[in-house]
């Protein structure tokens, strides 16, 4: 049932779960995104990169409906979000999960209540099952049951991200949006988080849209990379395509001094 109404993509036969066409977003005089096209296919991890202030988060927030667009269309799981009725849009919103940059955990609720909140609102489950699922979800993101009764202000940065990821996954979404999931984590923590995302993507069959700056994440977990510059998606493809590109910005980004370590570590893509 899921995604049956999605569009087949002719090029590689994959189903498109997010289809962005000609989307323009601006604030006042300033146009941030200028007629953007982007496809995200089912089951892939798309890394979305671009300079600071290029509008990566803006596109993400536009797709999930937090920012209005001036032109263009966005289809998620085959549904045009602008034209959809309220119930239809709500149904789609339940099929995605969002990890915000700062976690955006509800600070007045404990970790358990944070994870149960979307479940409680959308499904009618027994308290026992919800409690068990909280433990299961926490373990899936690499935490244990002892954080259940903690409040968001008592969590470290890494734990906050993990709990926020667990909350994003609370309703078993098909698409997960991650806004800079590894920012603010130490390299070991960031590496673990990357592995976690890859594992979860595999086990739950997720489609992941990841805004990131982390070259290591791009190397290790992303199937495809889309690059945003000057309000346009200037390139979309695999890491190999990116490294081969002669575009000056891409060259500077992927061949800069900070990327050396990443390249040295990365296995040559098959």
């Amino acid at each position, binding site marked *: 049932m899921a995604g049956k109404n999605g569009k087949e993509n002719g090029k590689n036969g994959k189903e498109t779960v997010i289809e962005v066409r000609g989307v323009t977003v601006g604030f006042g005089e300033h146009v941030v995104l200028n007629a953007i096209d982007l496809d995200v296919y089912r089951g892939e991890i798309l890394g979305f990169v671009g300079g600071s202030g290029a509008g990566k988060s803006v596109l993400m927030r536009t797709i999930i409906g937090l920012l209005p667009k001036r032109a263009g269309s966005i289809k998620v799981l085959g549904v045009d979000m602008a034209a959809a009725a309220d119930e239809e849009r709500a149904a789609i919103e339940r099929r995605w999960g969002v990890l915000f940059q700062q976690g955006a955990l509800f600070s007045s609720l404990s970790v358990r209540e944070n994870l149960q909140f979307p479940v409680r609102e959308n*499904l*009618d*489950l027994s308290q026992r*099952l919800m409690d*068990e699922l909280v*433990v299961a979800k926490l*373990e899936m993101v690499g935490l244990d049951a002892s954080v259940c009764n903690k409040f968001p*202000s008592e969590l470290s940065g890494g734990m906050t991200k993990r709990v926020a990821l667990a909350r994003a996954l609370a309703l078993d979404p098909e698409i997960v949006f991650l806004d800079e999931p590894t920012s603010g984590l130490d390299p070991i923590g960031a590496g673990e988080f990357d592995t976690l995302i890859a*594992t979860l993507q595999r*086990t739950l069959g997720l489609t992941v849209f990841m805004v990131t700056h982390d070259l290591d994440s791009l190397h290790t977990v992303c199937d495809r990379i889309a690059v945003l510059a000057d309000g346009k998606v200037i390139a979309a493809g695999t890491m190999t395509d990116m490294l081969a590109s002669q575009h000056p910005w891409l060259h500077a980004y992927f061949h800069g001094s900070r990327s050396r370590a990443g390249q040295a570590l990365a296995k040559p893509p098959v």
Partner: protein
Amino acid sequence: MSDTLLQGTAQGGELRLAGGGAWVAQNASALETLIDSETARQEKLSQVAIDMNGVERLDTFGAWLLERLVRAFKARGCETKITGLKQDYRALMDELHAVKPEQGPLRKSGGPTAVLAAVGQSIASIGKSLTAFLNMLGELSVVLVRVIGRPRSFRFTSLVHQLDNVGWRAVPIILLITFLIGCIIAQQGIFHFRRFGADIYVVDMVGILVLRELGVLIVAIMVAGRSGSAYTAELGSMKMREEIDALRTMGFDPIEVLVLPRILALIIGVPILTFLGSMAALYGGGLVCWLYGGIDPEIFLQRLKEAITIDHFKVGMIKAPFMALIVGLVACVEGMAVKGSAESLGLQTTASVVESIFLVIVLDGFFAIFFAAVGM
């Protein structure tokens, strides 16, 4: 639909379970009932075979219930087998299989001791807030002395800005409210005094009440609600975002930079507002006396001159800066007490307004005793 999710047949010592349909979140509730009724079977069972061939979809909810089913039978000593699980879902099952069984209670237990603990904590917190209040007063005095020693370090811009916020911008609402209060008192007074033919004493009542008590009280309560809450929220969100820590690391004293200008602004602003408020209330009272009570403005003023002395006015004005100090101190103490969460910010802001209004009224009581004793 729910009856096809799981069907069980027991034969001899063997239980055969056949899953079907979509084992997903939407069906989790129905599935849980079915699974619990299967695990509650009374028969003696040695083998359980779960056939998952009919299950079209499986998500974490369904997978966890399957895992719960398996665990329940394993705990009864049954040999449990899962067959026909789709390859795609193996990884998910492995993941959930690794989840450790719950250890200990997840919830904090309530009960009579918790109630006692809550009572004890709230009593202790009264003591704590009193200490915090005195602490802030002490720190503020130290900072004040230091600033008087080095006047150049005083944040004059900040003071003016705060004065604009809590004084100037409060003028219209204070004028309006005190004007209305003056009107109401005069109307009520005339209505009841008229029965005794004592209409004219309304002027005495309005004059004394407004100048001694109501002007300053209404203003202090308005300021507590309007500016005290704003102070708490401002300082609290600065505390939440570590701005106060940032100030401290740069060698600034947050009391000097943030608290002193705010409290001084109140101490300057509230007496002015009290004066304006009292005048507005008298004006309102006079207007009602004229229009409703038929007391000419000329007579009203004449009577007012006889009824009130400069002492009544002084009593009101002397109280004003102390009220301001109380409101400002409570607001800043509560703001500094904010912890990480948004809920805490809300709690402290509420506490700030409630406490400062309470203390303002208590202080007013003490002043009444004091002024009675000194004969003002």
